[in-house]
């Protein structure tokens, strides 16, 4: 399951009063190793004091005149990916996690970076499945079309046994690199499992066929390590929601992934290694 903001937040965070002097706050920073201090004025948050503010400000200044950081808010049950997007937007140093319009914790850049690292596959550098599930959910929320393509390396078990796992790992890295290079902008890629990769797009399934065929042909043409001939099968499933606000969208996405995965297995027997597993309205497909 995708982790939520409240699962990674700091509950016991330190706030400083708008009228506290830099010297007092510096002492706290030294003792607690805190990088960001929310600044409150009469109980209301008015800004964020960063470690950099503490370094460059005159010791006589009050927090109100030294703070330069900015903050945002995220609801407690929002995915950690949403928090990452806030920080990526660039203008946020700290996120308040809110529940019923009350701050119950904070998330800093360091926390989100540490969390996101757990969702990166060390071998290929691609994100794990959580990432594409979140992106697919976001597309559905926006009422967009989505399609999920499942890429599955043919006979990968044989390659591992015949050439060894180190060679198998190199091939996985090379495949990941090809997918990264040729997946169009605005698509979302992950290593789903062992030798399987998933790609989410905001296009209908049929519109993805040509793009997937192109990727498969580039993989066939690529010269892999040890001169091993590699081919990949792909299955596509996708469609559009009839009722954007109804139902459990995560269930729908998992169903689509499943359909795409089954299609990729079928595709192993096809000449062009590609099967369109599902295309249409996706409201009814949740298992």
């Amino acid at each position, binding site marked *: 399951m995708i982790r939520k903001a409240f699962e990674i937040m700091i509950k016991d965070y330190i706030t400083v009063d708008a009228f506290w002097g830099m010297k007092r706050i510096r002492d706290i920073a030294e003792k607690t190793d805190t990088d960001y201090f929310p600044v409150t004025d009469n109980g209301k948050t008015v800004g964020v004091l960063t470690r950099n503010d503490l370094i*460059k*400000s*005159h*010791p*006589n*200044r*009050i927090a*109100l*005149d*030294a703070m330069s950081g900015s903050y945002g808010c995220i609801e407690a049950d929002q995915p950690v990916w949403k928090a990452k997007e806030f920080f990526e937007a660039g203008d946020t140093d700290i996120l308040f996690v809110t529940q019923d319009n009350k701050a119950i914790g904070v998330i800093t850049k360091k926390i989100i970076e540490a969390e996101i690292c757990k969702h990166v596959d060390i071998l290929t550098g691609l994100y794990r499945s959580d990432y594409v599930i979140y992106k697919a959910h976001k597309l559905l929320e926006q009422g967009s079309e989505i399609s999920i393509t499942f890429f599955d390396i043919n006979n990968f078990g044989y390659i591992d046994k015949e050439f060894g796992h180190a060679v198998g790992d190199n091939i996985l890295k090379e495949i990941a690199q090809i997918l990264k290079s040729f997946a169009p902008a605005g698509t979302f890629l992950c290593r789903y499992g062992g030798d399987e990769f998933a790609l989410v797009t905001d296009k209908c399934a049929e519109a993805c066929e040509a793009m997937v065929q192109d990727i498969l042909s580039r993989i066939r043409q690529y010269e892999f390590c040890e001169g091993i001939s590699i081919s990949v099968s792909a299955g596509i499933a996708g469609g559009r929601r009839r009722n954007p606000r109804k139902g459990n969208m995560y269930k729908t996405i998992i169903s689509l992934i499943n359909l795409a995965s089954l299609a990729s297995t079928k595709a192993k027997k096809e000449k062009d290694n590609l099967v369109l597993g599902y295309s249409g309205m996706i409201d009814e497909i949740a298992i």
Partner: protein
Amino acid sequence: MSKNVDSTKKAEITMRMSEFEMPPMQDALIVGKRAPIGPEAARRMVDILSPDQYEIIKVDHPAIEAIVVRKALFNMLPQEKLVGLLLEEGGKVANESTIVKTQVNIVLQVSKSIDL
């Protein structure tokens, strides 16, 4: 051999008294980026003594962070002109760590002729 030493201690007191200036910051404060008192602290200090009379204007300047100006001055001179003047002249004497107190006297000269 013992020796007695007489010693005395005196305190000399000098007082200089003058009327407390209200508010104590005259017409404008030019606050440096690393000054010991920031613009918000200055405004709040003066707000307690003379409520709602001063305004902070944050400026884009290499050394000056903001100017705290007596609002009444804007009745006589447009804000951007006054701020421009303060930055032009104040920028020559202020630096990052100073707070410069400024007195601004504006005299309007009006000359009109009317038909008789």
